[in-house]
């Protein structure tokens, strides 16, 4: 997947009424691309086989 640029970030943020000032769009693009790369790596995991699980760890009543 191609990296998002500051212009892409600016457009989507504006559509969601999320504020951007100064160099925000440049740095947010770096942050967002880092997230998308890291989360894409999860595709190698068997995520579709995950069973529902309780919020609390086992053993807690």
């Amino acid at each position, binding site marked *: 997947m191609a990296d998002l640029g500051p212009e892409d970030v600016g457009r989507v943020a504006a559509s969601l009424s999320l504020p951007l000032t100064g160099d925000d769009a440049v740095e*947010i693009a770096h942050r967002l691309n880092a997230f998308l790369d890291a989360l894409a790596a999860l595709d190698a995991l068997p995520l579709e086989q995950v069973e529902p699980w309780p919020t609390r760890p086992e053993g807690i009543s």
Partner: protein
Amino acid sequence: MTPADDDVLFAGAARQAALIRERRVSPVELVTAYLERIDIFDVRLRAFITVCRESALAEAVRAEAEATKGAWRGPLHGIPFAVKDQVDTAGVLTTSGSALLRANIPSADSTVVAKLKAAGAILLGKLNLTEFALGGTIRFPYGQPRNPWNPDHDPGGSSSGSGIAAAAALCSVTLGEDTGGSVRSPASYCGAVGLRPTWGRVSRHGCFPAAWSMDQIGPLTRTVEDAALLLGVIAGYDPKDPLTSRSTVPGYCAALANGAKGMRIGVITELVDGSDTHPEVRGTIRDAARGLASLGAAMEDISLPLVPLSGAVFMALCDSEAAGYHMRWLSERAEEYDQGTRRRLVTAGLIPAAAVHRAARARALIRSQVLDALAEFDLLLAPTSPHPAPAIASHTAPLTSKEQAGARFFGRRSYTTPASLAGVPAISVPCGFTAGNLPIGLQLIGRPMGESSVLAAAHAWESAAGLSIRRPAIAVA
């Protein structure tokens, strides 16, 4: 007693409480001495946002009068404590480290503060933190918190002031809040003890949320014994927090005597030997593992291959929760946020929902891996952080690439977030120093509700290592 009586001021609260009961130290002396240390050292360290000078002295006078009559409120009678400014205190400014809440004065105490007061403790003040406990603050609205071992270095976060105040002896004990490592990270960087209890063990009522599914209040102290003492006071079911457990609160202090003998402890190889781990940290942690073996624990390496993904998975979930909470303020009061916080929250608001849900599924896999390991081992061992406290300037510089962003935000968090994602208890205890005299933290992760084992092993290690006698030489501003 004078402020020069460092042995008393650096002693743990358990020891101080005994001295108060023996009438060898008075609550007024203790509070006065800590206020003097705050005046001297906190100009530079900026651990406190608010110091409750007058009310603390008034409470100390009352505690002293009660002591004279033999009327003891509880195990913390006359002990001065401070709490992260994310936690509500009746009639006392509570900012969550943000300019947005610069006039926020709660009308009621949080449950944990009410419990500490009921046990006899005296509120000395409110402690600095990264804005809204999220980390990544560039400009702190209430002053830049600094590491007592080297003021040019980061004290860790988000419970920055709690770590500083504990390590620099600016009060007896503190509380922090740990979502993804916010108690353990400052403990590691500042050379203190930080305990993240099992999720649901301690009430979050009155605590500003970072991420509901992982937030947990915990002690930040100078000794493991104090962490056990505080946990015993603050743990338990609270009808005001429906996610707290009804499980009986065991005697954590009594369990300290159990030591580490006979425990099976798994050493997480991905975190000890991983390429991100600083060589001095790796060596010190391996030494600590050998030390625990000499105390009778059976040490064994274990591989948890999903653990390195924890940082990114955690941030996707935590930041999305936080962005959802902050969305209205972001739209209406964006300029009042710190630049680092605002960029972090806006970024989270742009992550596709499907990617967040896949992160939630990945969390289940990581959690299963951690819990499966804990079915085999009593505890898991890892560094709290891959490196000692970094220079403050190193993590406030503008980001210039996605690789830099990933390294700054995800790598370090993979060391503390496995316990957060799994909801299990974990402690950071000092285990050594770098050649540059910066502390290194040892992390022990336990089974759900297994705080007694975590504390017992940490106490055994602390006693054997004898590191608690080392104190920071704090420069005066």
